[in-house]
């Protein structure tokens, strides 16, 4: 009997591996690439110990510690710096990868009925869970080895073999821990969306607990597996026993998941999904209300993220001037302006970046209109008494407000954090004005999206290329010394870089006129074209 529970696990592992071979490859390449590229960049950016000590100084504030954890700031070698600034955040990404992959092969397959087909074959009860476990173990160990050996192979003095392998395996074992956690959650709740939501929430709570712990009370950090990541003190103390902690945690979680799997019915869970509303609330009952409701969760998450982006940029404002003075490369990034501090120049550059990040959620909100069309869901609205103009206007209103809120939150976050760390803080108006100056440029992107949806909806996602282009030319423009017109191909290139530049109103007016033109043209196109669907 017992043997049969796992029969055909091997074949299923092979099958899962085959299904996911590209997905796994992309994750592996992406994570390894970003991990390996950072120490190289750090060696270039901070070639001397003096540079690194300056960097260490900017790290010594609660906001940074909350974000990346404690580090060996007294002996801030390239290795210690990499481990400090990258390991924890990469571990979160590896955790996310494991959550996604585990969920995909457990509850997701089960909910969609694919597991039913598999289980009707001569396959053991635990074969699917076991197979997923094997595949993710292989993946995490592979990642650990690639990262570990790769880091060592970079040949940087402060990155020895033991430390490098520990770096890799801390990532791998954290991944396995969250794979186990997801496997357990997948037994408990009935649908895959909840599995993802709960697992992700647990990952973020782990991050948050250790953030609070690292800043105020170290004992608290020990509750969180992500606290163990920092406790490894890679490239300084190299505490290998942390791996044992993570691994035993993973084993316990997998064992528990396996046990729960054997005592439950297929497609059942231990948490019953509670019945939803039998009637719609009045707020839902309009095209605008529906459009808002469909995007609510996503928009709230983006809003929080934008605030955090602002806060994290703001939190490094404290010692920037001393930091920039010793660093040539960073100075190149900023086109130096007489009479302004580095901090002020840095703020004006950050504003472009934040404005472009803030462009992403409103563009998503606008593209949602076409997403709904492709899924044939607009038929339900247009087949009733909703005109196309009213439908489009609903999505447009949401996108326009969304963009305003995102920019505002980023600016407010930056100002708040900067005010708390700087000796002579900025005026609120300076920062907020610098952020909102980009609003007309953001609206141009939305207007362009409307135009694409109106005339060539199939290629409307090309708008992302334009956003990416804007980001590239404006962020790196100073460093690569592009000619002026390259930046002027993006609406963001016309916005004065406050607080360094003077405010100019002409571009604002011109861009606004362009926005109106694009939007009207887009609406006219949308009125006369076919609504698509399968």
């Amino acid at each position, binding site marked *: 009997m017992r043997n049969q529970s796992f029969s055909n696990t091997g074949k299923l592992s092979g099958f899962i591996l085959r299904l996911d071979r590209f997905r796994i490859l992309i994750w592996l390449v992406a994570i390894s690439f970003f991990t390996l590229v950072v120490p190289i960049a750090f060696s270039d950016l901070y070639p001397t110990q003096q540079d690194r000590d300056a960097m260490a100084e900017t790290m010594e504030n609660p906001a940074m510690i909350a974000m990346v954890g404690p580090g060996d700031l007294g002996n801030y070698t390239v290795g210690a710096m990499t481990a400090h600034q990258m390991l924890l955040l990469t571990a979160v990404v590896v955790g996310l990868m494991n959550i996604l992959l585990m969920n995909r092969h457990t509850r997701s397959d089960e909910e969609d009925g694919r597991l039913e087909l598999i289980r009707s074959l001569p396959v053991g009860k635990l074969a699917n869970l076991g197979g997923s476990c094997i595949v993710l173990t292989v993946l995490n160990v592979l990642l650990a080895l690639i990262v570990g050996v790769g880091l060592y192979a970079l040949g940087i003095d402060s990155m020895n073999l033991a430390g490098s392998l520990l770096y890799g395996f801390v990532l791998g074992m954290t991944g396995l821990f969250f794979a186990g956690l997801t496997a357990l959650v997948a037994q408990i709740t009935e649908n895959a969306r909840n599995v993802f939501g709960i697992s992700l929430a647990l990952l973020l709570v782990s991050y948050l607990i250790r953030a609070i712990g690292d800043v105020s009370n170290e004992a608290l950090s020990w509750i969180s597996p992500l606290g163990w990541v920092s406790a490894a003190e890679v490239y300084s103390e190299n505490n290998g026993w942390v791996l044992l902690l993570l691994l035993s945690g993973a084993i316990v979680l997998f064992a528990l998941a396996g046990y729960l799997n054997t005592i439950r019915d297929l497609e059942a869970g231990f948490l019953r999904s509670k019945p939803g509303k039998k009637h719609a609330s009045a707020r839902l*009952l*309009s095209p605008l209300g529906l459009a808002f409701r469909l995007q609510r969760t996503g928009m709230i998450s983006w809003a929080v993220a934008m605030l955090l982006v602002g806060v994290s940029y703001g939190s490094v404002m404290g010692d920037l001037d001393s930091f920039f003075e010793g660093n040539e490369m960073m100075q190149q990034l900023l086109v130096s302006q007489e009479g302004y501090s580095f901090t002020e120049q840095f703020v004006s550059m950050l504003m472009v970046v934040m404005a472009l990040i803030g462009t992403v959620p409103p563009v998503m909100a606008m593209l949602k209109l076409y997403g709904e069309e492709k899924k044939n869901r607009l038929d339900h609205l*247009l087949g009733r008494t909703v005109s196309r103009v009213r439908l489009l206007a609903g999505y447009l209103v949401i996108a326009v407000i969304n963009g305003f809120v995102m920019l505002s939150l980023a600016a407010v976050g930056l100002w708040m954090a900067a005010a708390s760390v700087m000796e002579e803080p900025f005026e609120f108006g300076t920062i907020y004005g610098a952020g909102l100056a980009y609003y007309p440029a953001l609206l141009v992107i939305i207007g362009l999206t409307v135009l694409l949806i109106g005339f060539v909806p199939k290629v409307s996602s090309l708008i992302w290329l334009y956003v990416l282009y804007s980001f590239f030319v404006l962020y790196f423009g100073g460093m690569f010394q592009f000619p002026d017109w390259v930046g002027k191909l993006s609406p963001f290139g016309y916005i004065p870089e406050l607080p360094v530049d003077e405010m100019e109103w002409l571009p604002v007016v011109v861009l606004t006129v362009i926005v109106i033109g694009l939007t009207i043209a887009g609406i006219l196109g949308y009125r006369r074209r076919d609504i698509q669907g399968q």
Partner: protein
Amino acid sequence: MAVLKTEDLTKMYGSFKAVDHINIEVREGEVYGFIGPNGAGKSTTIRVLLGMLKATSGSASIFGKDIWADAVDIHKRIAYVPGDVNLWPNLTGGEVIDLFMKLRGGKANQKRREELIQKFNFDPSKKCRTYSKGNRQKVSLIAAFASDADLYILDEPTSGLDPLMERTFQECVMEASNDGKSILLSSHILSEVERLCDRVGIIREGRIIESGSLDELRHLTRTNLNVETKQAIPSLDDMEGVHHIEKKEGTLSFQVDTEQLDEVVHYISQFGVIKLESAPPTLEDLFMRHYEGASGGES
């Protein structure tokens, strides 16, 4: 009076004619069956009628208004059920029904809504992501029949329903029909069409190849005969208009073209008829004949 009328309605995709000069007419108070296999152009026609696709040429009106320019006005009096109902996974069925009823405008009939939810045995408190195809169709059907529409456009509305629910659906259609509502029912379930429809149009490769009342269409085709005679009937298969002769325990069964019926009955009566049963052709016979006859490739 025609509630819905198309004149040479055509929809092209590039050089492909998805809908090719279609003329149909749904009269007030009738149930019009729109039949044809998958990909024949039924859904495209319906989406043109609803103003979601723009006709390449030809025209169509509903309640005397233009389907493209006056879409919103027309839709105030229409209830539409798509064949493939895609819903929002994180709304509940109840929320979607309310939304649909509200978006149609007019008064939402809550009593009727509850009645239909009972009748279709539907649980409105679940998220749409958990519904099967049949349950998603119920959402659409409940919203449609709870509304006080004058024209119902139903595009293969029963493809996911079980036989019990299909019966409930048929009751709803008959009820609406008795109330004087007009219904355009697209379907490939022929028994359903036979039962519900006053007139039908058969569409193939974008063209209407036959239309009229069921009786009229039957005229164009063959009658099934079962005959038992005292003496064997010689050389029946030589007669014009006789098809598919089968012999079973002394009974001959065969099909006769309607225009040859008189001659054939005269002929067989010479041999001493013991039993003569005749059955009208089923819609399926009719349908198959059209498809076998014209397409060659399909069978």
